[in-house]
């Protein structure tokens, strides 16, 4: 039996889940359909309400 977790999708939600789990010492397999992770947020220039850079 394994205690690994599978995360489907490498956008902001998938990346955050993966990092939280990995920091807890759990092995994560992050599957992304596209060639690179980042999702829609990587396409954004800035984010509201602080105008921080999205990447």
């Amino acid at each position, binding site marked *: 039996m394994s205690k690994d977790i599978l995360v489907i999708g490498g956008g*902001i939600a998938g990346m955050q889940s993966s990092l939280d789990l990995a920091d807890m010492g759990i092995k994560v397999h992050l599957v992304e359909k596209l060639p690179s992770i980042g999702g829609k947020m*990587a396409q954004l220039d800035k984010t509201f309400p602080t105008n921080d850079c999205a990447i």
Partner: protein
Amino acid sequence: MLDVGRHPNIELLAYSEVEKVEGEAGNFKVTIRRKGRYVEEDKCTGCGACAEKCPTVVSDAFNEGLGERRAIYSYFAQGIPSTHTIDADHCRQLNGKKCGICAKTCQAEAINFDQEDRILELDVAGIIIAAGYDVFDPSVIPEYRYREIANVVTAIEFERLLSASGPTGGHMDRPSDRAVEAEIAGLEKKAKKSQKAISKLEEKFNEPSAQFYKKYQAGEYKDDEDRKKWADKYTAHLAVTEPLEELKKQAEGFTVAKRLAFIQCVGSRDFRFYPFCSGYCCMHSIKEAIISHEHEPETTSSIFGMDIRAVGKGFEEYKIRGGNNSNITYVRGRVAEITEGPDNNPVVIYEDTRERKVKRQEFDMVVLATACAPIKGIAELAKTLGVELDKYNFIKTSSLSPVDSTTPGIFVCGCAESPMDVPESVAQASSAAERAAEIAFQMDLEKEKAVA
């Protein structure tokens, strides 16, 4: 993003899809298909020399088709992993033509045209669905004439135009102007070629073409084959240069877009498409208007909406700040139609509900705040995972367990669950991670018990 790529506990499986899932909470068997990139992941350094030399130009999906990439590409400049990928639909070599330039260029010898999809089997305790959403395609709304009027764009397209790493380098160049500039570049190339051809002939006969052509038209050199060819070439050259000059004159008047209209609820809160509110669009329209004003201080923006939903920490203040400092006018009213006026300017026809008057206003560019649509392929994914969907095709959850799907051990976060903005996605993602961790640690305990 970078942290995900280098965390020792994260195995990144990009360009992969889940094919089969069996088992139950605590003990899932997952089959994953790693799609062939035709580039060896462990050899590619991401230097990009291959993409520089690749002769095939393809429209760039990351830039919403506003830019171009090559058939071998990295999805975007800072993308992780930086491994390049060959687009099998467009690559010349993979479509039976002679090429292989990338393989010759690659110093790491990473190109492998014979690479096939690989199947990977994983044992996992729990699964998190963070599949995201699709941007609603507004071309199905006839009155907004998206794709018919060049300067009507979607919010995500506008976002790429705003981005310093985007196709315009952050300048608010209008799509219609960019199309003219692309045409000028194409014609200039042709003109250079035809100029070269007639220059040779001018040298040969030692006479300027214009002077010769006058004589030729007057009937001189009737039976001279060589001169006939020259005349043909000269008329072909004129057929290129005359429209080129006209376009250049037109292009002189081009400036960046300064009068912007943002139309809210495009596809959402609309019973023809999605009746729900997409949640983030009011705020991202305000954000795009503020950023445009930062880029170009003369920019004025009108945001047309039924109401502005600024629900979130600091959101209302952001909205008011936009109105006070960034020349944003909030207009209460739903836009009835967009038509095209002079100079490719879109004209917005709407009812100002405060004055109860139907008005028309001309803009440089119109931005459609498109709905958050369920992602394509979610039905297949839900079937594979054995989870239920709600009536709009988002993953079904209940209000008291907002990250639990209908199957134990499978959790959901982000826009796969329902439309939400970045802060909410992040909060839900942490919540889903914690729920999944519960199962993982339970498995650990049971393992220890078995040993004892």
